[in-house]
């Protein structure tokens, strides 16, 4: 599903003394099948943009096109329900939204709310649990008896069971241990590929942005300041550092090494494998 934000602006508490401009003139295109990472400082407007992707916030200027629907500023928008069904958001700490008595009831709540029959919803719950790496036995358990990591997975399963065309992930692995983090990110990536989803990842992790995304958008003070492929984005280290952002460790290391050796490698490498291979070749083959 194609998503396009066109010159959107959003003001919190518009027309009150508390009005605050959060984002301005933001345009982002997300064609079907794109994995896009949205990065930026805390408070740069990422979360505000994210909430426009399924019409939780409606723009105060500009328009949002989600699939065949257009949401325009300053006009009554109908049928937001359809959008919310197609765009699944995994919020930060989604386990805080668990509320049902059993894991199964929690997972089927979303799909049933959108008119899926109970039987099918239960079927989907089983599949979604498998996708997030949990055993079927926990379906009958209370979600509140689970560990933090398991609760996170159940909450994600609830979003997957809606079978969205677009997945919006807001720091989905915050607080998980490294293994859990990798498992969840790999799971989202394979789902992204298998179902040709559009995926938008809001993250502070430059490693994840470099590893999974096709496109990276950088936000600063409510604006989009840069957009490109990971290699493009991470090739301009100084610029990122000036914005107060990090670069992947591998890129930082490459720059350090280049400086020390007084040379420039052919390109920016985004994985340890690639970089070590390039450097090893250089070291072995280097004329004195």
């Amino acid at each position, binding site marked *: 599903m194609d998503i396009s934000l066109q010159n959107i602006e959003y003001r919190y508490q518009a027309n009150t003394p508390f009005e605050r401009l959060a984002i301005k003139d933001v345009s982002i295109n997300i064609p079907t099948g794109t994995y896009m990472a949205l990065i930026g400082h*805390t408070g740069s407007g990422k979360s505000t943009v994210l909430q426009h992707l399924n019409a939780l916030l409606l723009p105060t200027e500009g328009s949002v096109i989600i699939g065949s629907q257009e949401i325009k500023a300053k006009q009554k928008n109908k049928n937001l329900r359809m959008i919310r069904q197609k765009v699944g958001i995994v919020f930060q700490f989604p386990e805080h939204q668990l509320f049902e008595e059993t894991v199964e009831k929690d997972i089927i709540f979303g799909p049933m709310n959108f008119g899926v029959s109970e039987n099918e919803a239960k079927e989907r719950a089983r599949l979604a649990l498998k996708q997030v790496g949990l055993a079927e036995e926990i379906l009958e358990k209370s979600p509140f008896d689970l560990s933090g990591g398991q609760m996170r997975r159940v909450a994600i399963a609830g979003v997957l069971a809606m079978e969205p065309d677009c997945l919006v992930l807001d720091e989905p692995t915050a607080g998980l241990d490294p293994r859990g983090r990798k498992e969840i990110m790999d799971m989202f990536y394979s789902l992204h590929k298998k179902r040709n989803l559009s995926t938008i990842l809001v993250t502070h992790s430059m490693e994840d942005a470099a590893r999974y995304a096709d496109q990276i958008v950088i936000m600063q003070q409510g604006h989009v300041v840069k957009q490109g492929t990971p290699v493009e984005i991470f090739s301009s280290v100084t610029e990122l550092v000036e914005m107060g952002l990090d670069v992947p460790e591998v890129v930082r290391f490459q720059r350090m090494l280049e400086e020390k050796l007084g040379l420039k490698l052919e390109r920016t490498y985004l994985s340890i494998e690639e970089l070590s291979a390039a450097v*090893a070749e250089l070291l072995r083959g280097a004329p004195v």
Partner: protein
Amino acid sequence: MREAVVSLRNVSFQYENQSSYALQNVTFDIFEGEWLAIVGHNGSGKSTMAKLLNGLQFPQSGEISVCGIQLNEESIWDIRKKLGMVFQNPDNQFVGTTVQDDVAFGLENHGVPRNDMIFRVEDSLKKVNMDQFLNQEPHHLSGGQKQRVAIAGVLALRPSIIILDEATSMLDPKGRGEVLETVRTLKNEKSLTVISITHDLEEAAKADRIIVMNQGEVYREGTPEDIFSMDDELVRLGLDIPFSIKMSNAFRQKGIDLSKHYLSEEELVNELWTFRSKI
């Protein structure tokens, strides 16, 4: 001989309705002025330990003492004055209607005089770089900003021990750096003892000492160098290894001989430079 400010002796704890122990027979000391990182997979007992230290839960067996005081239901109020805690999720610990009210809350509870309170609120907010938000309401702050306010709330109470329970896991790199730097400065200035429960191995690498927890038990303790030479064993425990070690391993596999196992990024760069100049 350094003085232990916190000691745990054979501490075990089990949550209600759980078949296994969250902590089992845990014994270790934390020394005055040190930065101790506690790492471990989700469910390894790290956060339970934090709750026990602050008397939010009491162990079923074993003893805990903080600054020489045995921790029990009578002494807990004295102990909480000495030990400030910052939790992972700021939304669960924000009580004020504005940023400055939130920081003042703890001070009010401790009966700090108003003038001193005003100074401390501003001072600690300045330290976490949130002093321009004094009158903002919490729901207008992003997660990272809220967390910095929570840290300010703890700093304002000037505890001698501060526990960070994954307190930086939601901050962006710059914010994380600033907060850790703030805590580090405070640690050095006031010989604050820092216990940092974390998944961030780069942060743990800068600690004085690391304790690795696994399934409720202390699995290993040592300096960062000791711990990170465990290599794949750490990965098996659900953890990760720091970047410089991964990078070194990749170079070794490609036939670049490196002199020792644990190298910081700088050391590794120097080593590669030496390697090149020998060709």
